[in-house]
């Protein structure tokens, strides 16, 4: 190297560089010339062609939206399909006097003057260039006729037939199936450009959103020749779009309707699962809304009524509503005590209606406590504690359990997490533990927290979906299920899931005993008030099958006087929530249910009859016969 450096001729090398730089610069100039030539070709010679493409036709290749896959229930009842709907659209570029045209439309269709604002809003919204802007979503036959007669006066205004989503069950299955909406600008940025270039509606909630990729289908296209007015003269080549896949849900439309009827207009939620598969048989959240409104469009007042109602019809209580589970949580506390060795099925305590932690003043009372201190359930073992719903038994048991181990055990049932396979928006509830309390409240875990947890109160929160899962797991004697809406895509069931998992730490005998105790909640009757199951008087008589259940009455986070609520609403909203979880038939469970009635009052008196109605409907032989068809 040193030798070479020694004889390097610096001047010569610089000269060489300059020579090369000149050559390369000339090359650069030539290549720039190629670019300029290309631009001249595109922008000068072929300008007319491209301008035409861009202005008149926008696309010589026009994309065709695929028909969206249909959604069926387990018997093949249609939950969502597509219907031909004539709509009124305008191509702004082809209209000379927009004001006059709109006025004419208003006049011909005899629309109220305020409809004009709606038109204006749609025209000002971001629209795809060159594509028609939809003014009215669904035209009646008369309106179509009027427009057809006056067609010559309506240049640039078109009646277009296209398929739009239709939900025949209307509000009944709105929260179960979800709905489609027009995509927002943000959605359009996320969606695959080409695939969605002709699509007008995308799944925005529920099953419609989760299975969007399956339901959407493959876009098609046609190469068209258009006349000067932009009307299609001839389709030169057509590739038909490929329809989205049809999907089938575990949902049972009739059970869904029966569940809505059982709630009888009260606010609340019902989730019914098939214990064997975790399939969601019904999913109800009331009040509900008509998803067709999101397709056909609604005015501002209608939308405001939906979105601003204090009863929140758009809120899916079944999967997103989080409530203290109250006494429905007690079977899990009991099972935890057995699994962790803190109690046995034989152990008895005396319940005098109140409980104190050692060395503390605060009194925790039983639900049956009365002012003259006659409350309490007497001598109770775990079985009696469940069918009588003894608070004192579970206060005592919870206070003796190691909190981390207790929480760990309970979490196996899906509390504090979302077990549902295809409901990603489902809330996780809240399973508090000392770490959580330190992080979120900056307080240590007090023994009193465990005591409250023993009866499903305190910070504990669960959704109806989670409590239905708990019921299904108990029905399965410990085999864990993951709720799923989907039964089939096209003609295929979804991929098999991993190995079955089981709740750890319990024997078959333990499961039989807890199921039997929950059976007593419903069936143990005629033994005098103090010895009957809590729900027997309300649902246990003349039952043709064996049902196991557990009631719960959950305290409500107090709502204080505020501008939004009047006095009557306030007292209503501060009433307790009624819960009931159940499954039946006990020996071979076909259905597991969780019922929540918001501000309903007592679990046994209010929620249990709802649960029975739902299960009756499902186990009714006639109903099952239809189902098997």
């Amino acid at each position, binding site marked *: 190297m040193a030798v070479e450096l020694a004889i390097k001729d610096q001047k010569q090398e610089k000269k060489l560089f300059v020579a090369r730089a000149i050559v390369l610069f000339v090359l650069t100039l030539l290549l720039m010339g190629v670019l300029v030539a290309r631009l001249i070709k595109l922008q000068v010679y072929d*300008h007319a062609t491209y301008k035409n493409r861009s202005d008149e036709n926008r696309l010589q290749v026009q994309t065709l939206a695929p028909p969206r896959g249909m959604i069926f229930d387990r018997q093949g009842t249609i939950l969502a399909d597509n219907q031909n709907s004539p709509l009124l659209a305008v191509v702004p570029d082809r209209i000379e006097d927009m004001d006059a045209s709109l006025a004419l439309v208003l006049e011909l269709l005899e629309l109220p003057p305020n409809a004009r604002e709606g038109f204006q809003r749609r025209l000002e919204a971001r629209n*795809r260039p060159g594509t028609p802007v939809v003014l009215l979503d669904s035209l009646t036959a008369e309106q179509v006729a009027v427009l057809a007669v006056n067609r010559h006066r309506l240049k640039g205004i078109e009646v277009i037939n296209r398929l739009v989503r239709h939900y025949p069950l209307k509000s009944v299955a709105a929260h179960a199936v979800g709905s489609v909406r027009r995509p927002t600008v943000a959605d359009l940025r996320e969606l695959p450009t080409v695939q969605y270039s002709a699509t007008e509606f995308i799944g925005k909630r529920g099953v419609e959103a989760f299975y969007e990729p399956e339901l959407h289908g493959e876009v098609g*296209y046609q190469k068209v020749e258009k006349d000067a007015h932009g009307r299609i003269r001839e389709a030169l080549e057509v590739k038909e779009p490929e329809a989205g896949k049809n999907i089938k849900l575990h949902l049972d439309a009739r059970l869904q309707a029966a569940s809505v009827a059982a709630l009888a207009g009260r606010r609340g939620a019902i989730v019914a699962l098939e214990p064997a598969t975790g399939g969601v048989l019904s999913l109800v959240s009331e009040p509900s809304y008509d998803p067709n409104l999101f397709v056909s469009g609604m005015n501002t007042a209608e939308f405001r009524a939906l979105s601003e109602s204090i009863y929140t019809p758009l809120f899916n209580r079944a999967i997103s509503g989080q409530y203290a589970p109250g006494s429905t949580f007690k079977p899990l506390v009991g099972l935890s005590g057995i699994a962790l060795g803190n109690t046995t099925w034989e152990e008895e305590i005396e319940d005098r209606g109140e409980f104190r932690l050692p060395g503390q003043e605060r009194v925790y009372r039983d639900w049956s406590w009365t002012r003259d201190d006659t409350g309490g359930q007497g001598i109770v073992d775990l079985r009696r504690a469940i069918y009588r719903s003894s608070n004192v038994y579970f206060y005592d048991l919870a206070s003796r359990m190691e909190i981390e181990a207790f929480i760990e055990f309970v979490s196996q049932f899906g509390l504090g997490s979302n077990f549902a396979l295809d409901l990603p928006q489902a809330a996780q509830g809240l399973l508090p533990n000392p770490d959580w309390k330190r992080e979120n409240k900056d307080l240590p875990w007090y023994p009193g927290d465990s005591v409250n947890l023993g009866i499903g109160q305190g910070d504990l929160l669960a959704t109806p979906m989670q409590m239905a899962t708990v019921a299904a797991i108990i029905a399965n004697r410990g085999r864990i299920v993951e709720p799923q809406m989907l039964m089939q895509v096209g003609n295929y069931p979804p991929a098999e899931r991993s190995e079955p998992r089981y709740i750890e730490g319990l024997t078959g005998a333990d499961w039989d005993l807890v199921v039997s105790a929950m059976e007593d909640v419903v069936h143990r009757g005629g033994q005098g008030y103090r010895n009957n199951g809590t729900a027997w008087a309300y649902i246990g008589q003349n039952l043709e099958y064996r049902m196991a259940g557990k009631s719960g009455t959950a305290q409500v986070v107090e709502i204080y006087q505020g501008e939004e609520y009047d006095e009557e609403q306030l007292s209503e909203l501060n009433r307790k929530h009624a819960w009931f979880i159940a499954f039946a038939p006990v020996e071979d469970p076909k259905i597991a249910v969780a019922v929540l009635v918001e501000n309903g009052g007592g679990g046994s008196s209010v929620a249990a009859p709802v649960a029975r109605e739902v299960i009756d409907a499902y186990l009714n032989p006639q109903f099952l016969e239809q189902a098997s068809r």
Partner: protein
Amino acid sequence: MNQDFQRQVPELAAAAVPRWYDRIHIDPILVGLLILVVLFGLTVLRSAVDGDDALFMAQANRFGLAFLVMVIMAQVPPNLYMRWAPMLYLICLILLALTFFFGAEVKGSRRWLDVPHLLRFQPSELIKIVVPMSVAWYLHQRILPPSAKHVLISLLIILVPAIVIGQQPDLGTGILVVAAGLSVLMFAGLHWRWVFYAMLLAVLTTPIVWQYVLTGYQKQRILTLFDPEGDPLGAGWNIIQSTTAIGSGGLFGKGLFQGSQSYLDFLPEARTDFIVAVMGEELGFFGIFALLALYLLIIARCLFLAADASSTFGRLLAGALTMTFFVYLFVNIAMVSGLLPVVGVPLPLVSYGGTSAITLMAGFGIIMSMRSHKAW
């Protein structure tokens, strides 16, 4: 410098008194041109992001950072670059290997090296500078024009990282790295005869490359070039849309913020790789022509600075970085206007996105350093 000689040539006497910009090693002409291009680009981007001020500001800030990087790179003396070239090359190879095995996968290719919470970058960006630097370092110590042996070793230096990058796969960057390395060889005086043979070889092996090297996807992109309407929803979509946008712009364009083709859905990647289409539609032929003219002036100025550098290393590196800049813009505009297949190369100093802007400005900083630091 010799006093008598200075007295005879008054311009040199004046040059001997360093101006303020010489002291911070900045070339005002080049910087002025760069600022013009950046302002031009931001104006077009403003239209392409369509009211999304956050995106626009992010890009403006990025250019602020890029200019800072440029100034810093200009302060580093050339001998430091040369001393560090081999070490940087080794580091880059290691980083590339790490990316290959542990890189974060984004849209099907592994380009990013992710150190959680700390940084996330593409080692392949660094390579665009380090490869020409290493080849220049190697050839600086040889007699030029280089002998066959030295040419082969230079090719090895270029191809090892380029092939790894091609495997990521990141064809765009791979091409730029090869272009950067080869232009060092060109500036070093590679015999024209060999250049001719290489081109002949390339032509003759085309069928073999087509048959055995290119993947179906890459072939599709090339075929699309000749018949974009053959697959109008797939590979042809971008070309149909971008040529329509450019063509519809005509001589003078539809005016800023007036482009309809570049709205939301029609033009994919409108603010990144395909921003020329927005420019062509809204500002027309003269708009793009003005940009090309600015680019040409930048290239001319850079080549002048390169020729004026005081060492072979400096000349070779500065020249190569200039040519990389040209390849960047040529590939991008040719691709968007339907002359070359679609490869992911942004339009330099205009496309939205930070990494390439910073690499490019670092390159301009190095070019200015090579010329400005005289004594070493």
